[in-house]
């Protein structure tokens, strides 16, 4: 018996030498790269899908999940673009405050601790290493990957860098080559970032292919990003590149096969995936692609059950009609200002289709208090329902794709290049394109005499407000800082006041400065 006990103890000890291997636990739901490639022949496109999604979704596990440590609802890339490009500019304001949003809306008291700057910055630097990681993974994987897919990854990385150049003007240059290094990367200048993105885009432009499927980059999407880069080159590098911009804009116009959608509103409706005009959309779906930061943010944020009401003859009462916009929620946050709807003249008499896209009932024309919901008209440019469809119920999440790049932007950019003296852009083409944009909106044509820079910035306002371009445009036209152009609540006064030139760039977030000592703050912060 004693011996048996002893043997038992000895035997018990033996297997535990091999138990040390149990420390290497294996997941069953998450996959290693090898498992992924073995399981799904489309695995690479699945990872690529994720990179595209990083501009619209907050995370891989539904709209409440976040890829980054920031709030899943507040921090998605597109929401950051709308906040930083539109709410800081003349045409759109928000009333929530949200611990830092007031400072954007009033272009005042910007500090490196404002979380809204961090959100965009973190999304940029989330997307870039994710791209770098995939490029490395593909290089080492057992599968061969087409040149066009690799080009798409490089495009997405360039697009993220574009927002770094435009919004922050400095940062590290993280590439697939230095990915994984533990040393702090050095900071590079706006000029260097510009050159990198230009080189990348020029390299992939010939090889990315003309059609990779809906929602994906192709030659003309690359051309558009190149054009945006060149159009703003004077701001970014001090050297104007309008002719280079015109070269690629011309290519889009001539070879892209895009045409203006007859109905302007179609571009902002649930079925805008059928639009002939959209060059590059950020996809949304009320079921499969849910996010609080895609067009959901624009649609729900602009609606209110308190003021979006109609008289119901059945009940004899005014009742909310959010469902008429295909929406189930109204967050009553965003309203346009007179700096936008003032561009159309008298809204009641204007024939311009674009002038009809404001909700005026129950709202005041003048924004005396940006925190007061009824001050300013909400924009109803974006809606969830299909064009010509009057729904009877709405969805919480929007299914309307966000038209990041579309043809009328191309036309107006071309016209601007021409006015700014690009050698390869004629004024007569420019006038034709501008009038095509205006006529499509049932607005009268202009004459050559009218076609100047002031006209173009206003027409861009009429056509493209709330599409994520406005702040960049105002800076390019020298109207964002200083006191030459004022709008409601600029500089935190109702009538508007001058703001310093340092506001042409946002402050680098403190969290980034803390995490990499090589980073410097922008002047003025």
């Amino acid at each position, binding site marked *: *018996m*004693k011996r048996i*006990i002893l043997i*038992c*103890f000895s035997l*018990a000890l033996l297997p*535990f030498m091999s138990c040390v*291997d*149990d*420390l*290497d*636990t294996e*997941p*069953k*739901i*998450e*996959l*290693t790269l090898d498992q*992924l490639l073995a399981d799904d022949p*489309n695995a690479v*496109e*699945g*990872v690529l899908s994720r990179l595209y*999604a990083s501009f619209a979704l907050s995370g891989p*596990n539904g709209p409440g999940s976040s890829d980054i*440590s920031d*709030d899943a*609802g*507040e921090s998605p890339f597109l929401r950051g673009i709308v906040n930083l490009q539109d709410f800081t500019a003349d045409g759109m304001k928000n*009333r*929530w*405050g949200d611990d830092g949003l007031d400072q954007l809306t009033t272009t005042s*008291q910007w*500090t490196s601790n404002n979380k809204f700057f961090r959100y965009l910055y973190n999304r940029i*630097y*989330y997307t870039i*290493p994710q791209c770098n990681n995939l490029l490395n993974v593909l290089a080492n994987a057992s599968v061969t990957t087409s040149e066009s897919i690799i080009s798409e990854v490089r495009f997405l990385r360039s697009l993220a860098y574009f927002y770094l150049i435009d919004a922050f003007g400095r940062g590290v240059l993280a590439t697939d080559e230095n*990915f994984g290094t*533990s040393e702090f*990367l050095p900071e590079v200048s706006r000029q260097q970032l510009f050159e990198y993105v230009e080189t990348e885009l020029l390299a992939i432009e010939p090889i990315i292919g003309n059609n990779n*499927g809906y*929602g994906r980059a192709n030659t003309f999407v690359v051309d558009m990003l190149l054009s945006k880069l060149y159009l703003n080159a004077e701001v970014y590098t001090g050297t104007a590149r309008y002719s280079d911009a015109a070269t690629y804009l011309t290519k889009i116009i001539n070879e892209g096969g895009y045409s203006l959608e007859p109905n302007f509103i179609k571009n902002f409706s649930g079925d805008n995936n059928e639009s002939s005009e959209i060059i590059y959309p950020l*996809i949304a*779906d*009320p*079921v499969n*692609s849910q996010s609080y930061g895609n067009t959901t943010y624009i649609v729900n944020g602009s609606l*209110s*059950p*308190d003021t979006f009401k109609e008289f119901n003859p059945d009940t004899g009462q005014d*009742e909310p009609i959010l469902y008429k916009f295909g929406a*189930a*929620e109204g967050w009553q946050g965003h309203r346009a200002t007179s700096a936008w709807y003032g561009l159309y003249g008298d809204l009641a008499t204007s024939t311009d289709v674009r002038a009809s896209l404001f909700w005026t009932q129950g709202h005041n024309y003048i924004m005396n208090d940006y*925190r007061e919901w009824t001050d300013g008209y909400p924009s109803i440019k974006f809606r969830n329902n299909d064009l010509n469809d009057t729904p*009877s*119920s709405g*969805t919480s999440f929007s299914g309307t794709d966000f038209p990041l790049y579309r043809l009328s932007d191309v036309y107006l950019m071309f016209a601007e290049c021409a006015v700014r003296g690009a050698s390869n852009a004629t004024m007569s083409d420019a006038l034709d394109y501008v009038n095509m944009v205006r006529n499509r909106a049932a607005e009268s044509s202009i004459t050559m005499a009218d076609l100047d820079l002031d006209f173009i910035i206003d027409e861009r306002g009429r056509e493209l407000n709330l599409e994520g371009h406005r702040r960049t445009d105002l800076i390019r036209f020298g109207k964002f800082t200083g006191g030459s152009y004022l709008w409601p609540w600029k500089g935190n006064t109702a009538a508007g006041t001058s703001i310093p030139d340092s506001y042409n760039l946002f402050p680098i977030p403190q969290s*980034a400065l*803390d995490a*990499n000592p090589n980073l410097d703050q922008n002047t003025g912060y």
Partner: protein
Amino acid sequence: MKTKINSFLLLLLIPVFCFGQSSVKGTVSEEDSGLPLLGVNVLVKGTNTGTTTDFDGNYQIAANIGDVLVFSYVGFFTQEISFNGESTLNIQMAEDASALDEVILIGYGSVKKEDLTGSVEVVSTKEFNKGAIVTTDQLLQGKAAGVRITDSGGTPDSAPNIRIRGGSSLNADSSPLIVIDGVPIGIQNPAGVSNPLSLVNPNDVESFSILKDASATAIYGSRASNGVIIITTKKGISGDPQYNFSSNTTISEAGSGLDMMGSEDYVRFIEQYHPDLVGSLGVDVGTVSTNEASQVIQTSAGFKEVYNTNWRENILRSSITTNNVFSVRANYKNKIPFRVSLGHNKAQGVVKTDDYERLTASFKVTPSLLDDNLKVDTNAKFTFVEKNAADSGGALGGALVFDPTKPVYDNNGPFGGYYTNTDGNLLDGQYNPLALLKQRTRPEEAFRFLGNIELNYTMPFLPELQAVLNVGLDASKSDISETLGDGALVGYRLDENGNGVFNPGLNYAEEQHITNTTFDFYLKYGKSYEDKVIRSFDAQVGYSYQNFKTDGNKEIYAYASTTDEGVIGERYQVFNENNPNNRYFNSQNLQSAFGRANLNVLDKYLITLSFRADASSLFVANDVWADGVWGVFPSAALAWKVKEESFLKDVRFIDDLKLRFGWGRTGQQNISGIVGFYPTSPLFIVGDQSSQYLPGVNLYSAAPFQTGLTWEKSSTFNAGIDFAFTQKRILTGFFDVFKRETTDLLTRVNLPPGQALTDNFIANRGITESEGFELGLNLNPINSDKFSLSLNGNLSYSITEVTDLGGINTLPIGGGLLGTGSNLLFNKLGEEPYQAGVFKQVYDGQGNPIPNAFVDLNGDNQITEEDKYYTSLRPNWNFGFGFNLTYNNFDFSTSFRGQLDGKVYDLNALSFGHTESAAPNNNTSISNVLNFYNGAANPVFRDAIGNILYSDYFLKNASFMRCENIVLGYNFSDKFIKNTSMRIYAAVNNPFIITDYDGQDPENFEGIDRNFYPRPTAYTFGLNIDF
């Protein structure tokens, strides 16, 4: 009494030499009370002849003259009496005050209390909280110095937050390791179980050993950084079987809640502040069918039928809880001591339909085999819990804000007889909170087994050597299913024509299996010497293996809002083709090698050295021998028994005096709650169904990971003193001071932009330093037959400072207030962890706060983030005290506990304390608010946007003293019913709390007082029978 002892001693002194066997009998009684003692072991020394005393304390045994009789009984001094041929030998046994906790479990072994070198506090049956006790943690609340237990509200299955010495981690888990009868319990709770300690019936618990300092916990290494609580259950006895039956019934009342408006005030309020919403008051006259009283009033919007509903009263109830336990302790054939208990507990929460039922069975067998060389300790505990996880949060929140002018019921409406606000067919505003409770059932069933076998074998050829093998299993199975009733609001949707669709039936289901295994093996060698300088030493080496596995799947449903999903308005099962069962799986593995040595020098100096090497699967990428996987955790401790020194030996005033010094290092690795179970491996996550992007392909997301993660390490220095004054040990106690430094903190840090797959991840960064003290005192001033009084108290202080945060100053850590992204909480360099970042409120001449006016602390003429100041929420000072009094057959006891500092953010004062909150953004219905007319809220707050959220106006002092319980009992002697002792008692738990805080409850672990489940006042009547 004294004469008896003297004559007894005299007997011993007279040597009588007689030969031949005879029989001796007598009675064994307790020295103090004279009551007979049952089950006392009587043994003829050096033989196997033995017996035990019967119910009247009588024994009879055969002995030879010259034999030595040994009388032993747990909790009493053992007596050895030489037998000199007397026919009757009556024995009085003296209670050994230190004996009940004499042997203390310290992890992989035990030690006599007098030989303890670390900071270990034992709380045993006598000191437990009494009255309405549903779960084991409640026994301990306020009873141990430096142990702060905060439940998360008054629901029967409330999750306790336990912190020993405040905890030292920033992001890793700060909860102590809990070991139940040798089995460390799992990292994750089974689905449906909020309180991990519900798996032990409180009635089965014999004692808690709380290991506080590192020299004591280091032997547990890997999970012990935040202390260890060892729970030991009662075991079998020698002697005749003992039966116990206890039963009690508790009635609980929630008390009053926040001062929300009644109907009359509310009508006045809406007319005054929201004249445009007057039409939303009450209901249109005659539209509702209910028995509730109403009143028709004329408003500016016409006639309205107005009710007077107290929603809180409608969702709450006087709840009844019953608790019955039957147990047997016996010794089968005098060889196999065992204990069996069966318990049934049926608890109601004070929120309606919050029902909880638990069945427990525990079985403990502790035989000694093979000439006592093999000691076996077998435990099996079965727990079956079924609860209805009512949406108490939703109902409590809804009851606060639901318009009091609305009725509860409406037989005209479609919602199963409940009134609710609608806008046409559309639900508008909050759900009727009562309907929320009544129209949905969510039974959550969990079956859990916790068992182990410990074999302790003493080598017959080398009695100094023991081998100990312990194998444990903690397994559970959980089932959750959520079903909606007819007319349920939760499943109500609109179809494509805008008509209402009800979706009764299954709405969610989950099944889960958890399998945790433990294996320990160690060899122990110990030797004692009579006269050498080294009186004894022992050494042990061992190996420990723990594995945790959770595997489950879910049925998830959604409601179609587009035709792609199904018929609009109807429920459909969400199908994820990448993971059809919505399976989740995770596993974790911990392995260790450990050793310990104890050295006793001259019975005065005790030295303990321990060493442990630990590996965690969380740090393994591929190679289990890679850097960082293994952590090394040594400790050393010295105790000086000053009382044994010659200069104190004869000082009668001091009964015991011991000084302890210890140093040790412990590790922490539990970060799975924040970064999952594979934080060091590059993996891809399959995108959720709602997070797809490009059409036609599955979305895969590269998950962030961090190579080189390693152990968080805490070094603690502890010095303590144990003392007992006067011979009768009238005053006993301890005082401990500690200083702790935690390095390589597993902290969420911002990563260099662009250089990792996300912006922020766990890394070994930062340092915290803690210090504090604990004082525990017991006073027994009166101890006579008729009357005894004892008092106990504890006081503790601990403070932790963040001395390094990985090179940065401030790290937001959540604490959402209103709306998205509004975070109150920060970790900040140079401050305590868990700071609230707030602006300093500016007040007008009358003392009213001026909304959005704050002090410009940095004087730059603008209010920015830089003007926030930071203040600590968690308390540094905690205390508990109580007393026990017995007089004849009556006993009376009470205990109190509380905290002397700490702060709470009163989110309700913000949420319902601004006038705009009556008119929610997303609907046209109106919400109730705090009463602005009697000072419960200040109408200067119109809205809650901008920086108002961060006003220190809402930050309140959270000091409190709670009366934990008052108990009055009466003992019937066995003369009342023969051979039976019986006690009846009445108790009230949580009768009152003393505090300045005017919100719901200052005792709030999160520090943000939001939707809180009220802690009820409970009245208990109980009966305890031993036979």
